[in-house]
């Protein structure tokens, strides 16, 4: 991939592929899962070839998502560790919501909202995986009691609903903050975007002479 001259690399090609495999799995899981959750969304099972095949395919997609998400954890965990700036950002959240940049602290690669999405999914996906195995009737029903399966099915529904809410937040934030989407499709952002939203990240890249996505990455912010 060649990035546009004078831009910063927000996400490498590998990260983007990894992200979109996860994203595609999540959307498919959401559609198939909702079809088995409520009668009003049962029609979505038609997208997967009917109820039987929806039921059969859903857990396999889940398995792919778990593996894929592990890749995202490996790539993102370090930049998602909590920092002092998170608290300051949360206190300034009212300003963030109204697109007011004054009084919002300078931020490194991720703000507290992005960290919230990361850690929520990092918590919810293992819960969905574990409870999903318990209610994967075809292969695992003999290994647990019916009472355990009842707890699992309720927990699975609750965790899935929470994950969908986090996903809605994630998607909306990407649409709302212009330039973010391109950071995950083509992988680059403009220096102005970095200045506006992740100034500390920009300063570190410039100081390290890196083009991104982290100061340790090779390349220079701007060729001499």
């Amino acid at each position, binding site marked *: 991939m060649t990035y546009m001259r004078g831009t910063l690399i927000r996400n490498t090609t590998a990260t983007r592929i990894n992200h979109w495999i996860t994203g595609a799995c999540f959307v498919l899981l959401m559609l198939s899962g909702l*079809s*088995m*959750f*409520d*009668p*009003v*969304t*049962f029609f979505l*099972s038609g997208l997967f070839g*009917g*109820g*039987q095949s*929806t*039921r*059969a395919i859903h857990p396999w997609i889940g398995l792919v998502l778990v593996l894929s998400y592990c890749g995202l954890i490996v790539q993102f965990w370090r930049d998602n560790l909590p920092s002092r700036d998170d608290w300051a950002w949360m206190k300034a959240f009212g300003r963030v*919501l*109204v*697109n007011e940049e004054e009084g919002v602290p300078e931020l490194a690669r991720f703000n507290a909202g992005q960290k919230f999405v990361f850690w929520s999914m990092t918590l919810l996906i293992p819960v969905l995986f574990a409870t999903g195995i318990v*209610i994967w*009737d*075809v292969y695992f*029903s003999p290994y647990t009691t*019916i*009472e355990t*399966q*009842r*707890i699992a*099915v*309720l927990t699975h*529904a*609750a965790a899935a*609903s929470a994950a*969908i*809410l986090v996903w*809605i*937040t994630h998607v*909306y934030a990407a*649409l*709302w*903050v*212009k*330039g973010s989407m391109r950071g995950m499709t083509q992988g680059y952002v*403009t*220096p*102005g*975007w*970095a*200045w*506006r939203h992740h100034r500390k990240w*920009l*300063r570190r890249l*410039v100081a390290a002479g890196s083009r991104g996505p982290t100061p340790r990455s090779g390349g220079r*912010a*701007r060729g001499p």
Partner: protein
Amino acid sequence: MADLQSQDYIRRSASTMTPPSIRNHEQEVAKLIDVSRCIGCKACQSACMEWNNLRGEVGHFEGSYDNPSDLNPSNWTLMRFTEWENEQGNLEWLIRKDGCMHCEDPGCLKACPAPGAIVQYANGIVDFISENCIGCGYCVKGCPFDIPRISPVDHKSYKCTLCSDRVGVGLEPACVKACPTGAIMFGSKTDMKSWAGERVEDLKSRGFDEAGLYDPPGVGGTHVMYVLHHADRPSLYAGLPDKPRISPLVAVWKGIFKPLALAGMAFGVVAGFLHWIVQGPNEVQPEDEAHAAALIDPPDGKQ
């Protein structure tokens, strides 16, 4: 009594529409199993296999008279044998014909996510409509009696139909027909309750003070009822639940949680849209680019 048309449905799984239920002159039916008259001959099991054309795999001896050892997709009813030593130190051989109880408030139907895969007819029979079944196993979790079994062959759930196909043309269920001692009776629920009353009376006169009818109110009553000599302790009979009810976990899941979760998701989407039309997108301004350029290439030439 009933046929198998949708006009006879009073409940239909995963459906927001109430079934038409225009045939409103149907009597509620019931099967009455008088445990005290059962000799454990398994004729009912054979008749069930015969009528429904089911032949399970031949299993192994498990050290008990129960044969096969459990209900399975091709075995919808099962004699369960319990050897119980009573207070006088005498052995009582308790034999219970297990199978679907056809609850008035069916947990399987409540849990089922596939529209029309589980229905209840106006006569009270709870039936699985296999062509709509998706094989998820939610009915297993919904059932308070551990009855439905998922077939590994076609991934559909099976259980006793109360011979809805026979009842629909005015015949009694196959097990009733085959029972040599009259331990299994079939008719309107009212008739069966009054017959059970006579049987309980008789048992009490013979020293079974706690004899009674098992028609558990926790599931709204059942369309398969037992006459038990120890009605105060149903669990003596191979773990028949003392107070069956739909698990609160299933009730919460299918009751309050479902609409709450969907409302939450809808709220999330609407909140996003409102934010979009009120505040609009957050766009990078030319001065942001200018600041960034100055940082990357300082005007004094130093980097």
